[in-house]
């Protein structure tokens, strides 16, 4: 389903139906998924529709830019060690409109097939509301439904001298970079700083050094347009500082 479409077109997969058809001198965008129906009018010709995975923080309502991934089992990491694991994260499907060649497309719709749940990270008086997701831990890249779940390659680094017991990680959507091609992929890291504090962030630079693409496991993945990446908000921290434990 992910990709670039020139109207008129229609695409259907896993109960999601998306189409852009001409009605008179206008274009009509229609999307149905389950009981949810969206219809919008598009003015002007020569527009392109882009469907790609976006940060999972827009549905059912955008109330937080933070995603908390709870590990199914607690991990123990010795002081000074570094390990790589694979987790899953929820996917939201973003539908954008742009002029051909435009690098700043406009989001027109977003939907999700993944489970929706929110949680609080920290204290009631000063904690942070986060989108919640529970993930299994994999030692190799798992095979997932790309319309529902993505692969998160996570590097855990314990910079402290103590053992660290890790059961969750919180990520800020402002730093998220999603790549897709058959699967959906993100690469992040958790740096354990002390007994209760850690810092999380995403790998902005793609592995082969060329922006816009990620080459890994002999696969070339395309960089997705993000909802948070499109906002030209200055002074927004791309990292998340976990101060209430992990």
């Amino acid at each position: 389903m992910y990709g670039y479409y020139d109207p008129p077109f229609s695409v259907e997969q896993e109960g999601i139906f998306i189409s852009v058809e001409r009605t008179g001198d206008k274009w009509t965008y229609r999307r149905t998924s389950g009981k949810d129906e969206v219809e919008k009018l598009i003015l002007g010709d020569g527009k392109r529709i882009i469907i790609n995975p976006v940060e999972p923080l827009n549905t059912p309502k955008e109330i937080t830019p933070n995603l908390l991934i709870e590990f199914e089992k607690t991990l123990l990491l010795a002081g000074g060690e570094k390990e790589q694991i694979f987790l899953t994260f929820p996917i939201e499907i973003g539908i954008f409109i742009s002029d051909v060649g435009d690098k700043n497309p406009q989001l027109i719709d977003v939907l999700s097939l993944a489970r929706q749940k929110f949680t609080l990270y920290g204290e009631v008086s000063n904690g942070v509301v986060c989108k919640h997701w529970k993930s299994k831990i994999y030692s190799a890249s798992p095979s997932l439904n790309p319309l529902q779940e993505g692969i998160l390659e996570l590097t855990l680094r314990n910079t402290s001298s103590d053992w660290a017991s890790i059961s969750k990680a919180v990520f800020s959507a402002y730093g998220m970079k999603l790549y897709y091609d058959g699967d959906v992929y993100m690469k992040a890291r958790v740096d354990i700083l002390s007994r209760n504090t850690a810092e999380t962030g995403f790998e902005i630079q793609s592995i082969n050094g060329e922006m816009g693409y990620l080459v890994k496991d002999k696969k070339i993945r395309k960089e997705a347009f993000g909802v948070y990446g499109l906002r030209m908000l200055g002074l927004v921290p791309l990292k998340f500082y976990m101060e209430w434990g992990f």
Partner: protein
Amino acid sequence: MIPQDIGFLGHELYSTSLGPVTPGNLIKFVLVLSISIILLRVLTIYLRRVLKDRVSKDVGEPILKLLYYGTLVIVFISILPLIGIDPSGFMLAGGVAGIVIGFATQNIVGNLVSGSFLMFERPIKIGDQVEVNGISGFVTDIRIISTYIRTHDGLLVRIPNQQVFTTNITNTVGHPVRRFEYTIRIRYSDDASAAIWLINDYIDKEPFALRNPTPSVFVNDLGESSVNIIVRIWAPVSEWFGLKTSLLLNIKKILEENGIEISYPQRVLHIKSEPEKIQHVIEEPKEQQFIENEPVLNFEERVVN
């Protein structure tokens, strides 16, 4: 003619320690002050537009007000020599004058100081849902002298800052999450464990019912005519009201779909049937009644006879 007309601008109006003050100086003073006010207004409007998407209103507005009034005070003090006032002397005189003015404008100064503290301490912010002195609503603006609140029914209430600062303030959105509670009364004949499971399952599917702090569902009381189940749920403050108003009806529907019903007030009566005693009790009053009524019956007989 024209040079003669302009010449009056150089005439001395009065003289001070800083030198003579002319109409030209006065016009300069007014012009500089007016242009500064206009420029500062344009600048604040521009900055308000620029910062609109980048900084939240509750942070941006105090910064803009500080910039506007701060710059205006600096400009005003720096152009005082134009009208023959020495700012340093003004400051000294201000000490004495301040006491006099302070007494005269006690309330205004009180509100001003309270407004400054409100802006820096920030117990409430623009956009917060608060209750101040019995008035509930959304804070629309915090100004130097007063705070504006839009009540839930759309009225604009202006509260002097001194009152806001010295009274109890309840900020309902002061924390990121908030809890609400329901009491659900089910019949004694229903399975309370099944009801608790169904409610927990529904809460788990509801996105805005937070996973942590964990919701709690438990039998709190065995009432006169119902088993009382308490449901406590935490929600993000922005979604608290919407969730509270929708969840109870949905819980009722789910329970009813599964054969669990909300209990009505009821009282169970146990009637014991003991035939012999009842017969005895019934017969006895008849005899007694006859004895009691005998004079009356005799009276009738007497009348007839």
